[in-house]
């Protein structure tokens, strides 16, 4: 798997109302990598993700997945939105099965994989419940299971835990890290939260707004055997502070 984003820019609107939202975005993502985009609100993070997902087209530049240009949405790029996007009339299990049945997989396979992925996200017991009977964290885990079940080459996560409260957020971060280690998935994570980005990803891109661009990239090499310990360890806190001051500097420059 190789995702290549080259010289991508995006303009919304036309003529005098046009607005440059992304300016010359470049990065690549390879199998097994966990990458994060961090930036303040309006820096174009979601736009980058929508372009990769194929829900929008770049104004210039190219996005290629394994050498093929991205033209439209497809199940090779699974996406999890910030707002809960489960189908409210389907049970948790039916939601997980939904993508697979759109792909036209045979019924027995769907049944088997549904059970497997519900188990992977720790919801084996909750398969029969409707979304409104699940907590916010559980709903996002179902959404992740639904995306994973269609075997995407890359998982796109747009602030998946942004609407959750702090405690559930932390346990979801541990869940996602664990999932990444067990399944070797490739992921691109969008977040406001520097701690979340550092905790989970090998590479962190910092984005600045107006126009949206990548201003700073860090490779994170930390011992992730114990996330709870990592959160309060010295090297982690130093890195967090460094990135936080980088972001503050960007905001300061705007004032």
């Amino acid at each position, binding site marked *: 798997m190789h995702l290549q984003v080259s010289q991508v820019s995006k303009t919304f609107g036309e003529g005098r109302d046009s607005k440059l939202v992304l300016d010359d975005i470049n990065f690549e993502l390879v199998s097994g990598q966990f990458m994060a985009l961090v930036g303040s609100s309006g820096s174009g993070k979601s736009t980058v993700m929508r372009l990769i997902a194929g829900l929008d087209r770049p104004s210039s530049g190219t996005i290629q997945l394994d050498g093929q240009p991205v033209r439209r949405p*497809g199940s090779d790029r699974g996406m999890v939105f910030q707002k809960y996007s489960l189908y409210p009339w389907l049970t948790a299990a039916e939601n997980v099965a*939904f993508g697979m049945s759109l792909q036209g997989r045979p019924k027995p396979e769907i049944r088997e994989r549904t059970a497997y992925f519900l188990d992977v996200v720790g919801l084996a017991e909750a398969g029969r419940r409707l979304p409104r009977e699940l907590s916010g964290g559980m709903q996002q885990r179902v959404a992740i299971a639904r995306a994973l079940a269609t075997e995407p080459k890359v998982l796109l996560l747009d602030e998946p835990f942004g609407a959750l409260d702090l405690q559930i957020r932390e346990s979801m971060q541990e869940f996602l890290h664990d999932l990444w280690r067990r399944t070797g998935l490739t992921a691109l994570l969008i977040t406001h939260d520097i701690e979340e980005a550092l905790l989970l990803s090998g590479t962190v891109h910092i984005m600045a707004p107006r126009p949206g661009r990548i201003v700073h990239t860090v490779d994170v090499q930390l011992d992730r055997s114990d996330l709870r310990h990592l959160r309060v360890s010295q090297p982690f806190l130093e890195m967090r502070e460094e990135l936080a001051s980088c972001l503050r500097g960007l905001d300061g420059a705007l004032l």
Partner: protein
Amino acid sequence: MTWSPALRRSFSHPWVLGTLGILTVFLVWLIVTSSGTVDKLFLPSPGTVWEAGTNQFRGGILVNDAVASIRRVFLGFILSAGLALPIGIAMGTNRLICRFLEPLMALIRYMPAPAFIPLLIIYFGLEELPKVMLIFIGTFFFNTLMIMDSVKFVPHELVETALTLGGRGLPILTRVVAPYIAPQVLDTYRINMASAWNLVIVAELVAANEGLGKRISLAQRFLRTDEIFVGLIVIGLIGLMIDLGFRFLMRRACSWAN
């Protein structure tokens, strides 16, 4: 006076106060008519109305009329609902179709359907067709525009999620849009069914051989206010039943939306 908890609980049941409201009006009716202050010709007593009703029922007229009216409503409304569904969905999903049809429909919608009766009689005569067409004209545009709106309010996330899961056109329509709008569509039908029911009575007042509206206009000619009351009450009851039927269907088929 202190309210016992049991009494208060029984009052909080949604049906209790509603039934009480109906009973109150009934009681006032009974008292006013038995006191003899109002001319019986203007306000017949519940007893006379009941008698007139049972007479009509025994003679088979009541059932005959009800069946005739219900048939017209259902024929016209099924036609309207069946056509409004695909056209409303097409207008809600395709901007060009919407731009083409919306102004036209918005215009016709404001033409009062009963005003079409003379035209319909000239075109289709005095048989069943003009009545069915009146119900169609009176409900089709409302049905279509309301279904169009419900399609426009399908959350983007739900459609885009389906796209990123590998979905395309038709499956997204049948498996995302259709289930999402189902409760609103049923509610649209429920609301517009009420105007279909109004229209059938209007049509029958003008020209018909049988039907609940026809019976009312005949009763007027012979100053039979008791029979007018029978007609009104039966029309109300059938309407209420249809309404409850839709609500029941909605609770059954779309329990997720409650």
